[in-house]
């Protein structure tokens, strides 16, 4: 039997973490939680997750991407699939988010709330 894949979830809302954890566990994943960007980055180092899902981090785009940049600069996070969740409805150019040269690589951007089926489907695909 192969070990369960590890997913790290970073969000500042504990309830959102719990709800999303339940969904991911129903898909058979082992889920680790971090309530802020800093501890999220630490956990990438200590846990070496197979995939990370992070909030766009509070109000600004900048902060979420700052966390992603940090994660990408760590060996364990360099090539890891990463999903970003947005609390605001993505509109216009952000709807189809394409990572550019300057921005750190984000594999997928999803709107909150996330449908359970959608989330599990995307996670499965990214974990290939």
């Amino acid at each position, binding site marked *: 039997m192969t070990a369960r894949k590890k997913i790290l979830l970073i969000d500042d*809302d504990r*309830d*959102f973490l*719990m*709800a*999303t954890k*339940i*969904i991911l*566990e*129903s*898909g058979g994943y082992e889920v680790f939680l971090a309530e802020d960007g800093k501890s999220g980055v630490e956990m990438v180092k200590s846990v070496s997750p197979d995939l990370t899902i992070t909030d766009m981090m509070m109000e600004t785009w900048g902060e979420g991407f700052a966390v992603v940049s940090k994660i990408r600069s760590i060996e364990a996070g360099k090539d890891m699939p990463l999903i970003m969740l947005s*609390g605001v409805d993505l*509109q216009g150019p952000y709807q189809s988010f394409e990572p550019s040269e300057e921005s750190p690589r984000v594999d997928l951007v999803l709107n*909150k*709330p*996330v*449908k*359970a089926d959608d989330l*599990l489907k995307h996670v499965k695909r990214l974990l290939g």
Partner: protein
Amino acid sequence: MAVNTDKGLILIIDDEESIRDGCKQALEKSGHVVLTAENGKEGIRIARESKPEIAFVDLKMPSMSGMEIIDILSRDIPDIVSIVITGYASIVSAVESMKKGAYDYLPKPFTPDQLRAVAKRAFEHRNLKMETRMLRDEKEQMEKNFITFVSHEMRSPLLVIEQYLEALRAVAGRCLDKNANDIIERCNKRIQGLKALVEHWLDISHIESGIFEPEKNPVDISGIITRSVEEIAPLYHIRELSIETDVSDDIPEVTGDGESLMRVLTNIMGNAAKYTPSGGKVSIRAGHDEYYVSISISDTGMGIPKEKLPFIFEPFYSVKREGEEQKGSGLGLNFCRKIMEAHGGKIEVSSQVGKGTTFVLKFPK
């Protein structure tokens, strides 16, 4: 550079030297700092430079009249309070100057005490004026903060509840019987309703507080109709309604905010779907005449009674209709009207009970 003084800076513009000196002495005695000028041109230069709080201006001077000076001062110097010194105690000219923005007038001859009394009143008036403005600014800021606060504090818990319902479905969906799943579905519906209410309320608050300014871009009418129809198509499919569009080829672009106009369209199309029995039809037509570019949305629904039509754009006014499954937010049409008004346009409605309702969006050409 402005001269700083706690006691208040006063400017006196008068062509009579004796008046200038007399006023200066009298006002300095009560601790004011006094600047003087012997004509309008010099007075305005000093005022622009030193930003006095109060100005006494002689109404009748050779080169530039007191009225003109007051006009310029009240335009150039923020919060300045001007007082007219009038040689011929004519009520008419005093009233005229007060219309131009003077706060008070002082008829010659006057005693130092009278002068000081008028100055004191003028300072009090100025302080009140500034305090009022400060409070108003503060209130506006609080309103803006409140909107942001509500936005965050109301949306976040709703989002978390939705996510928990998804979690519940994920772990127990298959084990729950139909009743339990129905309950989850009802919860979801009510949350969607509450979310729509919050969004509409936010939109309207943004418009009312002046935060929202519609973009002024060229908007392709045909394009926003197509996109709105695409967006609403799933709802129409579920409710078994057909949708038909007819946009005239030569329709001109309108100037405005495409995103908000699309929301106006989907709002009205959503209403049409809600109040039209299955098998019905919604037609969207766009055309133009000499004055307006118009989009009309007609349904074959139950219609709105004539006596209720004037109120449907009011916030939280809801026409009670039989068999209505879901109540709206009560703000949708109010939002539509506000957006149309922000575009310099309007929204009109006509309806016949039992036959259907038509909404028309009109944009000025």
